[in-house]
């Protein structure tokens, strides 16, 4: 503790990282954030002069995949730098301190860095039964979250859990797991959805916030524009096959070997905003579609509740039985078609009868 008043630059210099290396890192960061060359020197300047930003990383209902992703960020320089850039004062999953010793850090940070620390939240609070479905340090997680949010500068909502609710909020959501922005309404929140988010996206967001002291530009849904403004489909390398009308129809068919489009296997790339098809995963080696499996839309709201991952058309549950739009539509059209036919038949019969009546009448 106390390290939070050091600058990032002094920390890495102490670790034997050269000035040249440091500048390389700054320009790399600028590029990865899609910023121009001028930004590199601004980043360098900020890192040399600003004290390191304290970060509190909390875990609600989650599976820790966000942490797993984060610590495997590909570029070693980026990862080292990010971990030195912030002062990760509390992260109950990976910190050495445990028990009361760990909990004391929360109070300390709150008092010492009021309004200056970043609250990074992985997972979300369940609200049912007074929050008792997630007890953390003897208290419902929701209380801990609210307490630490009170004095935070900004909140990062990591992953689909914190951003949207994810699997624990899937219907019928028995614990009433609730995304962060529905619980904390008076603080700037940046959503970094994904199950988990891509490591480079996570480090990119952290770098931006710590260097510029503010949140990056967000889209309508609160996600950083620089990573979430395009769909997987827009930059998918299988897109030419989509446009050509060449699809995988079954696992392990000839088309699968040829790398055809996975649309018919239920690929959610056309409706999913994420950076997988550009940044890719695990050091940029691949991403789900490259592994022959469609995108499941893990960075989208409620992606667990849209029917099978392997169906192109979403199941609609509102109608009692699970059917997709085509099945419902065809039944409706069939019913109306039958009704029209019956109506036409009755009309014809009536008309004949009336005509005969008229004829009788006239004669």
């Amino acid at each position, binding site marked *: 503790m106390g390290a939070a008043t050091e600058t990032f630059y002094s920390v890495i210099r102490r670790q034997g990282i050269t000035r040249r290396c440091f500048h390389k890192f700054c320009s790399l960061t600028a590029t990865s954030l899609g910023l121009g060359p001028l930004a590199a020197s601004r980043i360098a300047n900020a890192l040399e002069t600003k004290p390191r930003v304290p970060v509190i990383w909390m875990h609600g209902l989650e599976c820790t995949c966000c942490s797993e992703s984060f610590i495997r960020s590909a570029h070693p320089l980026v990862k080292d730098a990010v971990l030195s850039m912030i002062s990760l004062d509390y992260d109950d999953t990976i910190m050495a301190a445990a028990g009361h010793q760990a909990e004391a850090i929360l109070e300390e940070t709150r008092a010492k860095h009021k309004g200056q620390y970043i609250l990074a939240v992985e997972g979300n609070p369940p609200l049912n039964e007074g929050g008792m479905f997630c007890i953390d340090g003897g208290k419902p997680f929701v209380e801990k979250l609210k307490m630490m949010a009170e004095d935070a500068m900004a909140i990062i909502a990591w992953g689909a859990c914190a951003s949207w609710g994810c699997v624990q909020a899937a219907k019928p959501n028995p614990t009433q797991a609730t995304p962060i922005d529905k619980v904390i309404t008076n603080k700037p929140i940046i959503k970094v959805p994904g199950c988990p988010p891509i490591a480079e996206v996570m480090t990119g967001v952290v770098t931006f916030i710590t260097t510029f002291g503010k949140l990056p530009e967000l889209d309508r849904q609160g996600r950083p524009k620089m990573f979430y403004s395009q769909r997987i489909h827009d930059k998918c390398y299988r897109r030419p096959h989509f446009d050509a009308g060449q699809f995988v129809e079954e696992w392990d068919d000839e088309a699968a070997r040829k790398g055809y489009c996975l649309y018919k296997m239920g690929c959610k790339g056309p409706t999913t905003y994420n950076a997988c098809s550009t940044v890719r*995963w695990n050091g940029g080696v691949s991403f789900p579609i490259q*592994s022959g499996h469609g995108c499941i839309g893990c960075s989208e709201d409620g992606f667990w509740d849209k029917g099978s991952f392997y169906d192109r058309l979403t199941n609609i549950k509102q109608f009692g039985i699970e059917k997709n739009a085509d099945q419902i539509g065809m039944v409706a059209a069939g019913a109306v078609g039958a009704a029209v036919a019956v109506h036409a038949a009755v009309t014809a019969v009536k008309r004949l009868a009336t005509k005969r009546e008229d004829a009788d009448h006239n004669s």
Partner: protein
Amino acid sequence: MAGTRRRASALPPPAAARCLAGAGAAARDHGIIAGKWPHSLAFQPGGTTRAIDLGERIRLLSITTAFRGFLERIVFADSLENVLAIATADELDGWRDGRGGDFAHFLRLADSLALTGLGRGTGPMMSYGAYHGVDGELFPRGLFSQRAIVEPLPLTQITEDVSHAWMRDSFADPAHSSTVPDPDKPAAYSWCKAPRLSGQPIEVGAIARQTVAGQALITDLVARDGTNVRSRVIARLIETARIALAMEQWTRALRLSEPFCDKSRELPDGSYVGLVEAARGSLGHWMAVRDGKIERYQIIAPTTWNFSPRDSFDVGGPLEQALVGTDVGDAGPRAVAIQHIVRSFDPCMACTAH
């Protein structure tokens, strides 16, 4: 001890960063095969959606080689073959002296902290068997019994006991039991159920796997001092070396033109059991399918075995037994020794409500 602080402080780097770089390399391997990690999507019942081509095999090989390089330079400071040739505890001591690398450093540290005497376990251990290949399993299935011999695993004897868990009573057989919380249960003190094999608590994990597999060094260590904080860590490292070598072989052995997904693998209605060795130990899934949908699902995870609370005979699980008799000094429950023991089991405590 000089250098320990620098190596072992969790964050920030350099030790952790170096190690994460190694883990990151492994994740890249996984990335190529499965597209993404964590939460890979490419695995399907009956195979994978991923056909590896020639170019990818070469990339996979280069990654596994890089991973091996990381292990040989940083972790072991010796070739993996040499490390795996160490067959006894004495040879290990000889190998350690004067060697660099994290492993030798850990061994010296373990001696100075007397980790061998910490967290002793003498109970049975098991392995469901892992990495099934054409010539059998790399790590075979079996039970290392109280009589210190490897026996066949009586799989039908797996039960769940909830006498001290905040869980409602249900069937003992995981194929029929349920997991329903009961937070007001008087005798309970844990969210973890107590899994038992033939009524006994079982230690699982890398050390169990390597003992059942008859790995020479681990067998010798267990024969001398049972399982303990030191031997559990050693087992994990030895296992890592074995797997790194196996990964190279597997990658070379890939037959690229064969089908990669067996589509005949449908799941007709019925009951299913899936048993694998996960990183932390034996993982079992019990499932029933009806009308093509999952009707019930029950999981016994590795940490549940290790962290099991007492059962109805008041017998504690492996961790509880290992903690008994620990010298905590003045620190009481805050003693570092307790953390050493708990962490030596490599627990996953994120929820542990199974």
